[in-house]
């Protein structure tokens, strides 16, 4: 049985479509990744699923309850870790967990036992009585994950769980997410714009762009759609080379992306000499060539013609300028 099921879920803000007729299902017990660039509609989708935003049209069921008509029932079944920290920094870690437990109506016995359990799960037992304002960014995240689990939710929603964390902390958070999925059997719905994260964590991933769901599959399956190997080359006359290569039967797909040519092939290492030969015989100069296994970024590129990474840097720089 699927634990999340959306039905043409749509959200418009002043006529702008943020989420556009999205349909997907999440199976009980899996880690489901929602991958897309900033502004793709990930957070809006999560906010609708956790009942903080009302859909403009369409609806969804979470743990069997309708997100519009049965808000309180949905709220009882879910845990949420928001994109921005949502802790009371004037309270200690333990007090934050206690606050949460009482808001969800846990009994005293349940509360005391559960606080010990979840603190242990994220290795914060010895920091439990420190004020949260003295926590590091990674510790805050871990505490929030622990808090999301306090009331035994059926689904845990994680909105960009490792945003702004350094690589080491990120790896630790990934370990905790895997662990709680395995040990507690909690279904996890996570959004991210880091493809490594979606790749490493998700059992299945959905790619979303401009509010539209493009494709849902296992990360392996997604990458297989792009091809076995990808060859990226820069040369003098790209259009000509593209035309020639398109006729070769071993070339599965060829595209011009930015200032380079992208080919999907099988056994790429054997094809490189071949490509160089073809280029030389037609007088085209190859300036660089590389071979790599497809990543989810290549999958995104395949479906949208753009890379997630480039957009991210542009956006962050733009955002930085805006702030000043």
């Amino acid at each position: 049985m699927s634990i999340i099921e959306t039905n043409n879920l749509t959200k418009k803000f002043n006529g702008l479509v943020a989420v556009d007729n999205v349909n997907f299902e999440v199976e009980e017990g899996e880690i489901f990744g929602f991958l897309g660039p900033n502004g793709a509609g990930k957070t809006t989708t999560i906010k609708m699923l956790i009942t903080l935003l009302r859909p403009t049209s369409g609806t969804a069921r979470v743990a069997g309850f309708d997100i519009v008509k049965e808000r309180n029932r949905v709220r009882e079944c879910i845990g949420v870790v928001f994109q921005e920290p949502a802790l009371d920094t004037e309270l200690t870690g333990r007090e934050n967990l206690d606050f949460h437990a009482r808001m969800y109506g846990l009994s005293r016995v349940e509360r005391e036992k559960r606080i010990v359990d979840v603190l242990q799960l994220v290795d914060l037992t010895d920091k439990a009585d420190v004020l949260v304002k003295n926590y590091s960014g990674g510790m805050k995240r871990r505490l929030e994950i622990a808090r999301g689990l306090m009331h035994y939710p059926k689904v845990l929603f994680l909105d960009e769980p490792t945003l702004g964390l350094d690589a080491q902390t990120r790896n630790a958070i990934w370990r905790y997410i895997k662990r709680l999925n395995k040990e507690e059997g909690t279904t996890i719905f996570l959004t991210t714009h880091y493809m490594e994260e979606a790749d490493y964590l998700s059992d299945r991933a959905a790619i979303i762009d401009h509010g539209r769901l493009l494709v849902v599959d296992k990360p392996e399956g997604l990458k297989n759609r792009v091809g076995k190997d990808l060859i990226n080359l820069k040369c003098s006359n790209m259009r000509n080379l593209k035309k020639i290569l398109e006729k070769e039967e071993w070339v599965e797909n060829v595209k011009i992306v930015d200032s380079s040519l992208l080919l999907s092939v099988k056994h790429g290492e054997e094809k490189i000499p071949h490509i160089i030969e073809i280029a030389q015989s037609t007088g085209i100069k190859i300036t660089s060539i590389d071979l790599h296994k497809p990543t989810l970024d290549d999958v995104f590129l395949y479906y949208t013609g753009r890379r997630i990474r480039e957009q991210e840097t542009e956006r962050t720089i733009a955002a930085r300028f805006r702030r000043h």
Partner: protein
Amino acid sequence: MVLIKKSELQAIYIMWIRQLKRFVRAKSRIISTIIQPLFFLVFLGLVLNNMIKLPASSGNLQFLDFFAPGIIAMGIMFSSMMAGVSVLWDRQFGFLQEVLVAPVSRFSIVIGRTAGGSTTALIQGFIMLIIAMAVGFKISSFSGLLLGIVFMILMAFIAVGFGLALSSIMKDFQGFQLIMNLILMPAIFLSTAFFPVEYYPSFLKILVYINPITYCIDGLRNSLTLLSGYPYIILPVSLDLLISIVVCIAMMGIGSYLFSKSEV
């Protein structure tokens, strides 16, 4: 009347406890909220007390007996309005989302907020009352004190409701200072907190009379100095009470309506 579930009571309780903990831990805030009225009472109150002689009919009462309830009321209202507005802080720091996504009704959230905010405001009110008594303010009777506490609670609720409404309309801190200066300060100045209504010029008198806070302060003054023949009382205490209750219900209603309507 809908019965409140046990789990809702627990949620209200923990929201109340949270605000008390935050209050006790923010030492600088406690000090500043006590220092300001202390300065008003001592530097302003004691000097005015020597300067202003009351009519002979007022017996052994002095100007401080008029002034102190006004200052206490001002302190309570400022503090509880800040508690209502602190929803803005929670919104800014993301904590509001944690509260809103919990399976707790919006009504209980408003009740928890109000309980927390008015409790801390009343604690400050009592500290000010003790300071006032230390510098010479006299409470007429124990029953007068009890009635005074009722007025203090009503004032706190009104101000929390006002703060909640403000924080639901405003999405950030911009304009907050403006609202403070443009609404709260005039409302206090035009409420007989500092001066008897007799001394306002006639065009301001109208504003004093239509200002609901006037009657809360009049009621507090009335009850703390009850039956001791104090001049400058506007209405009988029962009418003050009636007006204050009506304003309180209206303000709380507006505050919780706007809060429940606002999205994250």
